[in-house]
């Protein structure tokens, strides 16, 4: 069955339908990872977006029930060059097509994804739609009717839509590596990937996942040892209430670690600014330099907004990491709070695990601060 990709600039690309049928509108972005499609699809940070995979053969190893980064697909559409109908892997349970259908996501294959990526790179992120319901060339009036909703589309209320409804607690899956007592970490779910929870669990933490709208008082009532601020979708600046909450939470001196949206919201709470990037960083090969050691790490990333490092108020925090390619801010170390944050994804999944040690650093921070508190 034919499917069509309509871009906000009026371009129409013809392909074949995969997954569900119908019409979907979203922000078209591209991701350059060569593996980790299931993790990408189930990453809540893609909320409101239509994902283009630059790698041409998607779904080669199929989909399984273990590699979910959340319970569902948050993206609004999926664009691939070729969807594999005969996947092969010992954990494969279903094809990409079946997976998309199961989650009712509209996809399209047979698109020259490299050409599309070049367009997005040059013009920046662009809205678009995938439809299986009409041929835009044969029925231009239907396309004209759809155009305003494509052009007017904006990702809004992203965190509200992806965060959990009620707190959930997960027990550790291993003993703490340092032999210390089990730590209780509160995780503010801003559109959280499961692997953040797993990374904490396997380091001996009990993790309570909290809705993004949790108030500082509710957090205090839990008496957690540390606070984790998760990744998530959308424009960080629209979350004014959460930003205010985070400021109050961090003011208590709680040891905290932020990733991606968590990093951006913390910076906003500290008085810095964020801005929308031309086409963002979405892939598993982004080099990030850590100023403290001079080392450069390969990281997994997925973000369309960035913290403007120069806007961090003096004495509040300093940029600790930058992207080695475009020098954008990739991490902040706070002086006024017991907090550090990174733009990239140390939890990986998919992508390189080279910075997973940051979770260890977070735990060390908690221990150190707890010792100081205990000493008082």
């Amino acid at each position: 069955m034919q499917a069509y990709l309509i871009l906000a600039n009026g371009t129409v690309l013809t392909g074949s339908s995969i997954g569900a049928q119908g019409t979907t509108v979203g922000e078209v972005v591209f991701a350059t990872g060569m593996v980790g499609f299931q993790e990408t699809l189930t990453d809540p940070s893609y909320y409101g977006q239509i994902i283009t995979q630059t790698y041409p053969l998607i779904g080669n190893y199929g989909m399984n029930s273990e590699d979910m980064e959340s319970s569902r697909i948050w993206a609004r559409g999926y664009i691939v060059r070729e969807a594999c109908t005969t996947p092969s892997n010992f954990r494969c349970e279903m094809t990409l097509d079946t997976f998309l259908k199961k989650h009712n996501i509209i996809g399209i294959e047979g698109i020259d994804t490299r050409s599309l990526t070049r367009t997005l790179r040059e013009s920046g992120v662009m809205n678009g739609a995938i439809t299986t319901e009409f041929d835009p060339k044969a029925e231009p009036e239907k396309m004209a009717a759809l155009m305003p909703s494509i052009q007017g589309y904006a990702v809004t209320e992203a965190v509200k839509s992806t965060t959990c409804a009620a707190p959930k607690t997960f027990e550790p899956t291993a003993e703490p590596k340092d032999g210390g007592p089990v730590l209780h970490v509160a995780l503010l779910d801003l559109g959280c990937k499961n692997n953040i929870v797993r990374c904490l669990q396997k380091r001996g933490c009990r993790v309570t996942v909290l809705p993004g709208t949790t108030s500082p008082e509710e957090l205090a009532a839990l008496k957690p040892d540390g606070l984790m601020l998760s990744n998530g979708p959308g424009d960080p600046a629209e979350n004014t209430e959460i930003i205010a909450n985070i400021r109050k939470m961090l003011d208590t001196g709680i040891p905290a670690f932020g990733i991606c949206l968590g990093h951006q919201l913390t910076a906003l709470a500290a008085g810095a600014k964020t801005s929308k990037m031309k086409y963002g960083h979405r892939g598993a090969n982004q080099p990030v330099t850590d100023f403290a050691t001079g080392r450069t790490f390969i990281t997994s990333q997925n973000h369309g907004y960035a913290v403007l490092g120069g806007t961090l108020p003096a004495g509040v925090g300093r940029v600790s990491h930058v992207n080695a390619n475009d020098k954008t801010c990739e991490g902040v170390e706070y002086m006024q709070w017991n907090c550090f944050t990174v733009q990239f994804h140390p939890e990986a999944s998919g992508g390189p695990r080279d910075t997973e040690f940051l979770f260890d650093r977070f735990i060390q921070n908690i221990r150190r601060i707890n010792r100081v508190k205990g000493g008082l």
Partner: protein
Amino acid sequence: MPKDPKIKKVMVIGSGPIIIGQAAEFDYSGTQACRALKSEGIETVLVNSNPATIMTDPDIADHVYIEPLTAEVVERIIEKEKPDAILPNLGGQMGLNLSMELARSGFLDRSGVRLLACRPDTIDRAEDRQLFKDTMEKLHQPIVPSKVVEELEDAVEYAATIGYPVIVRPAFTMGGTGGGICEDEEKLREIATNGLRLSPITQILVEKCIAGWKEIEYEVMRDSKGNVITVCNMENLDPVGVHTGDSIVVAPSQTLSDKEYQMLRTAALDIITELGIEGGCNCQFALKPDSFEYAVIEVNPRVSRSSALASKATGYPIAKVATKIALGYTLDEITNDVTGETCACFEPALDYVVVKYPKWPFDKFVYADKSLGTQMMATGEVMAIGNNFEHALMKAVSSIELGLDTLTLPDFEKLSTEEVIEHLHVQDSERAFCVYEALKRGVDHKVIYDITKIDWWFLDKMQHLANLELGLKQGELTREKYLEAKKYGFLDKTILRLSGASELPVKDLHAGFKMVDTCAAEFAARTPYFYSTYDQDNEAAGFIADHSDKSRKKVLVFGSGPIRIGQGIEFDYCSVHAVWTLKKHGCEAILVNNNPETVSTDFDTGDRLYFDPLNPESVDNVIATEKPDACLVQFGGQTAIKLAKHMDEVGLPILGTPADAIDEAEDRERFDELLERCGIPRPEGRTVFTLDEALKAAEEVGYPVLMRPSYVLGGQNMIVAYNSADVVEYMGVITAHVDMSHPVLMDKYIYGTECEVDAICDGEDYLVPGIMEQIERTGVHSGDSICVYPPYDFPQSVIDTLVDYTGRFARELKVVGLVNVQYAVQNGKVYVIEVNPRSSRTVPYISKVTGVPMVDLAVRCTLGEKLKDMGYGTGLWRGGKSPYYAVKVPVYSFLKLHGVDTMLGPEMKSTGEVLGIAPTFHEAMMKGLVAAGYQFKTPGPGSCVIISVKDADKKEAAELAWKLHDYGYKIYGTAGTARYLNSQMIPCSVVRQVSGERPNAIDLLESGLVDYIISTSPHGRDPHRDSVKFRRKATELSIPCITALDTARVLVDALRGDHDISKMELVDIATLHRDPMVK
């Protein structure tokens, strides 16, 4: 960390002659290293015995020594040049081993020379089996159960505890030499004995066989700061059990999920970090198909064949970056050349699929054992890029030049389905074709998987191709069917053939091109590196519009495809030089080639690179996009020459010698007419198609006769027939293996001295840079002959005739560019054997030793310049005088090729060559022989030589035997030879033939007392013959076995020992020709 300012002069050691397992990839990496060093203002000293390489060009390094790669020689060069440091990790196993030897002996420390990039203990931890095992255990990296042993009985005992099958891997040998899978104790005893002997430290690893697991490789890099990246990962289509050099390899991996991919990636990074390597490293893993269980198989702590492949597959210049790291730079300080903006500390993202396909020499060695195992057999490889796997695979199959345009191999079509399934068990070079045949027959994938363990994903993709092929054969060729077939790589001519249609449903459909940019289009790249797809847009067209300079003439240059016997690295040398000259003279040079191991496929060699097959349709696609003004075909060997006719048909002007001249030189009748016009004699000859014609022709011209198919390369399938039985055997073989639309050529065989002349011609004048005289008489292929420049025993009259004839040919054939002529000289009379109006194998060698930049001059001729304006004069260069003799000695890979007779003949067998340069003939010969691996041992007590020669050779052999006896060797001979020698009063004991009662020749060989063998017994290729078995045994024991009396003569002279290599002059050929006194 910036560059270390103390490093001002660096020595780079090359990898020596091309042999199986160590091929052109190290010329590529060495050249890239030298250029990187130069760009940093560092003076470079290059040492390599291989003259066919680009790295040994005076343009590439400041000082170039084409000298034997022995510790002694390199030490002397270090003493002379006093480099600050040595770069050991870019010259393959050869360069690495040599550097380690110098480091371990303390020589480097004593001389104050730093070893860059690695430390000896690092190398040991990767290459010494026991230390490697300890290192992996420390890192908690799983390895295959194995034990290092130094005694045969320990190997047998350990194998009994882990159970058969086991794999034997000798320590410190390259390409897996001497290893193998052992099904039982008998096989283990055989392989282990051999492996222990071949290992320089008498050590082997006995390992549990995990054949059938997936084989995955990671190319990783690390700098002094500890930054680590993976450049690329690759998945072998063939499971563990087939050497990765013999596997079809796909990049990136296809059947690994993020979890497995990251698990192995992390392991690779942990390994390189623990080893402390600064530079590139290759990690090979075995991954169990049905779990996360894996094992580290091998770690190569250097730039390898896989890194060359990874560089080309991703666009990431590993050798260059490794060199900069060695100088002290860190990854984040090095710019990614592809984007010009981002840094080298990142991981390439591919948005295409790469397939590497090996090129094996089995089309040449029809009697060779084609089965594949842990020992590499491929001489070269091709790479193909597509945006689906099927397209890349189809491109690769076209590029290996087996005459196939799909995976259908006609031999398998003849088998019954049962036979096809049975044949799937045979793990050989044709297995992919057998699998394909099974898929076409509808054999259940489970059946195929259970036998071959080729992953289901690959079977499904190959099934897709099979279905497309079958589909084309049925029903009408619709537009949809056609477009679908194009997308997955079917050529138009294949589609027409399969469908039987008379015309295509779409006229003039041309492929577009996409860019290889390391970043999946995330950043704007400026790499002029493209591959074809049938997709929407054509990036190359846009790139040309933006970057191409319309005022410059656009010239297409065809490369030479995969390295194979007869068409080696020398043609890449020629192609690259042609490109450089074109660029220098105001042209835009556009390269098409498919070999990932070469300098020509570096994206910054030409103005643009098209990494695609060299078939007519593929080239047409490039032409449609580029719209070039002309093309060059004379520099890319037979692969490029084959395209000449097509270029004529499509009307693209060929620069230089016209296509018709090639036909004139190849077509028997036209060639005879040409000779007549030139007034040049040639041996009498005939053209035949059938056995009857052949027998009749042989009678007419008289035995012996030289037989070969027309349109040959490297004497492929060429023999000397001494009698009718030989003719019958030959015609039987040839009709089975060669397309008989071209006839077989039969010539009277002239028994004399062979020589070779290369010349440059501008259409009027010609320049002969040098004449080469061959040591072996006619009958041994020129590529296998020891070759001397300048001639050492020709009278002036012969030299004058050779120059004169060459000039007549050049003019009569209207050669503009290069021409190569081969002659036989008998009793002062000169006969022509063949004329090739194109570049030849000897061009790099002669260019270097004479200082005449042959390719450069030839290209300028094709652009319309005249020789007399170029400053090198005309006629014979310097009147044929040279201050140095240069002796080229061929090098073979017989050890890797089972069942191949090592006897030299008209069919070329060598894979590479070395050069010895010295002021006298004898010194140059000695250097050449040493460089080729001959060891000049003083005969000890019991040292002996076995002589077994055919009747015609006995008289001459007696002379040699007498000298050898004089030197102190005991002489053994087979019955006839011994009888003759004894009759000549030369003490000689009889040794029984291989099939004779024990003890026989085999036992004598195994005694370890045999230093040399001279064996010229009757020719023959059937591996079951006694003489063939005898020579094979010698090869397996690495005992030099000389199969031509002329070779034996120079060896025996060299053994006389009145020349001491440690006192011979070291010749820097880079400064030699810069010195005006010499010129």
